[in-house]
């Protein structure tokens, strides 16, 4: 069954481009060009996800999100040219699930849509029954017993060293680790000129778990201190 996605933007070309990108991935796309149309189309029972622009005529995106949230519990992703932190916080507090700044990278957009859909549709049941000992942070889920990292429910293929790093960081979500400490605990050797070594592995892990490795959301560098996995 093809999942149905509603794309809302007052710029018809953008709607078309997004629709094309998503259809290539095998999704069914509904199109709306302002908030009112979005509200009308949001009753569609097949609908699984909404991509919503903010600045639109008739009814703006944030108001539309508020209205839709009253009736439906599905992932809503905001697309906006405003990239301020305050705009993001405002959008998320209105009930949106994610915030994608324009101009976005098409691949990243598709990846995010896929990620949210997976969590919404497939992991919905799993969410209800959280496995014992599981550590969750947003899209990531780590099972220490099995030593498996899941991103959107999919196991991530990690090398032994990468797994050790993920193990350390996921067990201490939010705690900052200096490169020396990571090196000592993962390699088990006295650290010497460790920054490059650790950074190389961090970059590789990012490629595997982040939607946009250039702007990581989970595995972050705390500049001048160390590394951490963000708590989401």
């Amino acid at each position, binding site marked *: 069954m093809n999942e149905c996605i509603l794309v809302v933007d007052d710029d018809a*070309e953008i709607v078309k481009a997004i629709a094309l990108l998503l259809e290539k991935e095998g999704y069914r796309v509904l199109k709306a060009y302002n908030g009112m149309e979005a509200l009308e189309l949001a009753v569609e029972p097949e609908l699984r996800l909404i991509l919503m622009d903010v600045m639109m005529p008739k009814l703006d995106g944030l108001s539309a999100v508020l209205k839709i949230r009253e009736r439906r519990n599905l992932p809503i992703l905001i697309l906006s040219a405003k990239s301020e932190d305050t705009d993001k916080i405002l959008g998320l507090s209105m009930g949106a699930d994610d915030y994608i700044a324009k101009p976005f990278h098409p691949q990243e957009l598709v990846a995010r849509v896929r990620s949210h859909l997976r969590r919404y549709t497939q992991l919905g049941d799993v969410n209800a029954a959280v496995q014992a000992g599981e550590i969750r942070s947003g899209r990531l889920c780590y099972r220490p017993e099995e030593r498996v990292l899941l991103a959107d429910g999919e196991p991530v293929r990690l090398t032994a060293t990468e797994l050790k790093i993920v193990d350390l960081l996921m067990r201490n979500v939010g705690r900052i680790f200096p490169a020396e400490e990571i090196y000592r605990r993962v390699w088990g050797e006295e650290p010497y000129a460790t920054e490059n070594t650790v*950074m190389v592995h961090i970059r590789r892990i990012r490629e595997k778990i982040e939607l946009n490795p250039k702007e990581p959301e989970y595995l972050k560098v705390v*500049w*001048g*201190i160390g590394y951490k996995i963000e708590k989401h």
Partner: protein
Amino acid sequence: MDTKLRSIKPALALLAFVLGVSLLLYSGAAWLFLLTNTSPSTRVSLLDAFQADYQNTSLFRRMLGEDLYALLHYATSTEYYSSAPLAEDDTDLLYHVEKDGRLLASNTSADLSALDGLPEGYNFLLIFNGETASIWKDGQEVNVYGDGFYRGWEEDWYVPGYANGSTHDEAEYAQVVACLAAAKDPASSTSGYGFYHIVQDMSRMRVLLIWLLVVPPAAGVALLVWYILWRRYKRRADQAIAWFTGHIWLELKAALLLPLVFLWSDAVTGCIGLFIRLNSSLLFWALAVLPAFWWSCLYLNDVRYNFGRLRAHSFCAACVRLFHRQALAWSVQQRMDRRAVLQFVLCIPFFLVCAAQIPGLYSRRYYTGLLPLLLALICLGGAALIAAQIRLMTANRKAMADMDRLLTHIQAAGAGQPVGSLELPEGSDLADAAASLDQMEKGLRTALIEQMKSERTKIELIANVSHDLKTPLTSIVSYVELLQQEEGLPEHVRDYIRILADKSQRLQAMVRDVFEVSKAAAGNLPVTVEPLDYAKLLRQTLADMSEEIERASAVLRPSLPETPVWIEADGDRLYRVFQNLISNALKYALDGSRIYLDLALEEGQAAAVIRNISRDELPQGVDFTQRFVRGDSSRTDGGSGLGLSIARTFTEACGGSFSLRTEADLFTVRVAFPLTNRRPAEVPPAV
């Protein structure tokens, strides 16, 4: 040792100057005194003291003359002499006197009446034959009378027989023959003052003169030469003294001038008096010359170095300063009020003096007729004056109260507090000023509101422009992506698409940069300042950029300390700063050259310095941190031209200092942050 010497040198130079001048002054005075003073109280005169032979001294001539007259008186006296006319035991002076061929007195057995009879050891013989005296010295006859006139014992022999002598007395001596012989080297110390004492006095006088007249001036000159060699040290001593005297109040100095004047008048009177006649009390006064001189020098020195500050260092000035300092704590009203009171108080002594005259007026009888009228006038005038003063003061007080309100108002407005319009009482002196102030304030407020509005508009404009840029960019990026996914396109079309993708990426980066720089320029850049390790941040940045660094043709040579360097900054922003700086350096460095990245600690600061040799010639006099400025003006290479601008604005937003220097083709960027004592929060131990 060296510093000790340095501090002692000025003191020595000063001492040399003071001693030298004092000695010269003293010896000059002594010379003048001794040369001009011919008083007989000194037995051996200045000129006599340096005679080789005591018989050539004028003292000898006088003594010899007195001895001769003693013999003549003895011979011609009608009274009876119980003792010998001259000392009988004096072997330095042999005598022999006879009258009418009869020996009257002698202290020698030798025959002195002829030159041949002179005993051994005696070289001087005087024979008076009743009329004239003949003298032989060392066998030679001496010309006794000269031109025949007597001018005084200093020049002539004090003997009878001169043309201007007393003939009456000399007639009595006609029957007398007197002979006197003097020893060549007197050795007898008789009870009286003999020739031996002349010799003694001469040598004593010589010693005295040398110590008084030769040694002091010589020492004085030597000391002055020393001073001239060390005069720059003496100047330092002068300055030190001037520094000291500069702290004395001017009034005290003026008061001390009075004794100085007395001292000088004493000194001058003493000196003039000494030239006229010798007197021990005058000598005492003349001694005042030296203190007076040095006292005056002290004044001159003070004036020379402290001239501009003399007025400031006075009791009056100190009082005024104290008043001013006190006045700073008062409000304007209090200040002016107290000034007026002071003015009034200063007049009171004058009134009191006037009042004190009234009893005096009563005591003079001849005023009595006019007195009541006069008194009435004075009292009336005084009362009117006081009343006028009080009235004026009250009026001023009112004006001052208004002024106080006006000033408070101005201060409040200056501090940016919202103030309404100022209401002053009707007819106030300051009503116009208050009205102008109100107008000014209104204008200012309007201007401020307009400025804020325009500031807001500017930020909105930036946001709008960035939105307007981002929307089409989104389409471009999306369709380029779709094109890239298209299959079966010819290779050259694929190539075009690659270029489109590349440029749209760059455009995206540029829009982001422009937006951030504009925000920073408008002061709207949010920063989260946290303590972080500067060295670690640089190492992380290098690690993060390792691929880019390896690809570059230049070699990066970092030199970072292993120990943490704690500063406070926004880590994400600072990472952007160094990302920009390093990629700039990699992009523009000469192929194969080295880029140096150093982190140095200096005086509470940590400074990261990046140095590279530019590939292209650097234009001189260009501020590279200006927006859109690049090394080459053609702009054909990549980059938004905002890298350095972003680096600078971000550094400054984080509280650091950013500086850039070009020297020939060497490009140096320095990013410095103050060190901090803050540390990141402790983290719980890891599981």
